[in-house]
């Protein structure tokens, strides 16, 4: 049971390295475009996703707008390094990095380092310590949008971004791995832990 390949995606490449910023055969689709046209094709269609991710990371609409504007400028400057991969994942990785620089600068207290996170994961215990209680549908029915939003906002950033990209934005694991610059295995583990923690918080609040 240890060898479970993920379902290959349409158009996905089979290279094993980090999927981001590799020149792919599909890159020539955009080769004839100038920087501006490339930006319009690659970045502009994903501004909504960019804004929502920034909003979940900064937990504030105004800050999210600033972050997206800054990230767009960075994306424009780096548009030549976009190599025909997944445009949404490419942009979201820039948004994410911009949001974290912003947080480091403006709210240093909120930044959780990777080391802290490992500690959190260890403290949180192994995944196979199963919670046997199934949350009754009544619990779920009681949770309103505000409570849910607050509970997601409470997740440590690496868990939160993974959950948001998967369960709200509907990215697949490969895209999430690309956007958050971690291996797919890490995406899977963060996602499972994020969902567990979220359910735990909702249960405690009700």
């Amino acid at each position, binding site marked *: *049971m*240890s*060898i*479970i*390949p*993920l*379902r*290959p995606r*349409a158009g996905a490449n089979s290279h*094993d390295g980090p999927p981001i910023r590799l020149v792919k055969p599909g890159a020539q689709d955009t080769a004839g475009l100038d920087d*501006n046209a490339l930006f319009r094709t690659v970045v502009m269609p994903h*501004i*909504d996703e*960019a*804004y*929502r991710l920034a909003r979940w990371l900064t937990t504030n609409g*105004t800050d999210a*707008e*600033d*972050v*997206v*504007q*800054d990230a*767009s*400028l960075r994306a*424009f*400057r780096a548009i030549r390094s976009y190599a025909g991969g997944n445009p949404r994942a490419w942009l979201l990785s820039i948004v994410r990095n911009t949001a974290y*620089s*912003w947080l480091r*600068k*403006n709210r240093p207290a909120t930044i959780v380092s990777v080391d802290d996170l490992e500690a959190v994961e260890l403290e949180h215990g*192994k*995944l*196979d310590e*199963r*919670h*046997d209680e*199934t*949350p009754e*549908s009544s619990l*779920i029915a009681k*949770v309103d*949008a505000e409570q*849910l*939003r607050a509970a997601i906002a409470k997740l440590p950033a690496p868990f939160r971004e993974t959950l948001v990209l*998967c*369960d*709200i934005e509907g990215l*697949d*694991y490969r895209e999430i791995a690309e956007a958050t610059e971690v*291996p*797919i*295995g*890490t995406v*899977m*583990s963060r*996602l499972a832990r994020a*969902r567990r923690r*979220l*359910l735990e918080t909702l249960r405690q609040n009700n």
Partner: protein
Amino acid sequence: MAINGHGLAQRPRRLPHWMKDMSAPRSDDNSVLLVHAHLDGELDPANALSVAQQMSQEPALAAEAERVKELQKLIHDRLPREAAPPGLRARIESSIGTTRQLRATPSWMHSWRALAASIAVAAVVASGSTWLVVGSQQKPVQIAELLVSDHIRSLMAPEPVDVVSSDRHTVKPWFNGRIPNSPRVVELAKDDFPLIGGRVDVVGRTPVATLVYRRAKHLISLTAVPAGDVFAIGGPHSINGYNIVRWTENGVTYWAISDVEAKELETFAQLFRTSQNEL
């Protein structure tokens, strides 16, 4: 797409790269992760089937699947995906437009700009002022506070401007000699934002150019502050009921401050940025 069963049988029996990435996952952890992957539609048909079988034999895994499904439904029902605020795309497009113009500038203009910049720097050094320090050391929120104070003070003064003129050809030269770089001045009278004049404000110890426009009975102060840090972001959108709109172009951050509605101030900013009626 390896949907056909034959492709699966031929798959090499080695660890796929994403499994190698996991720090020695225990098999039990693994089956939990695979339940999640299964619900997310990430498994190929053969493995989806085998996870489904495992779930039917292990109640704990089935319960995990139930919880995840309920959570996903909850998120889907309660948190509709909101669109980006209406002005955001336009602001992005216009900041990109500016960048493009910079890139498209012929090289002789770059050298001219460099020369102009060095003259400006020399002027700053000679006057002993702290021009360039403003943007890089003061936080957006501090600048915003100072500019709102300046705006309020100007409203209480006998005249909100030091030079009264609706003519940009008068206002722009007036700044020459008072501050190192004179601001971009555009005419927006036909859009019902007439220019009424200009004044010199002080941010920290640095003189900066402020243009004053009028909207009905409200005044808009528009201040040009050299941007020390291109990536400086953040800062409030209103202070004490005064709305603030800010953007950066060509190394200058423009701050529009007024008691007009936020939306109108946005419109003003948009018009100012796109206007061709400048010197």
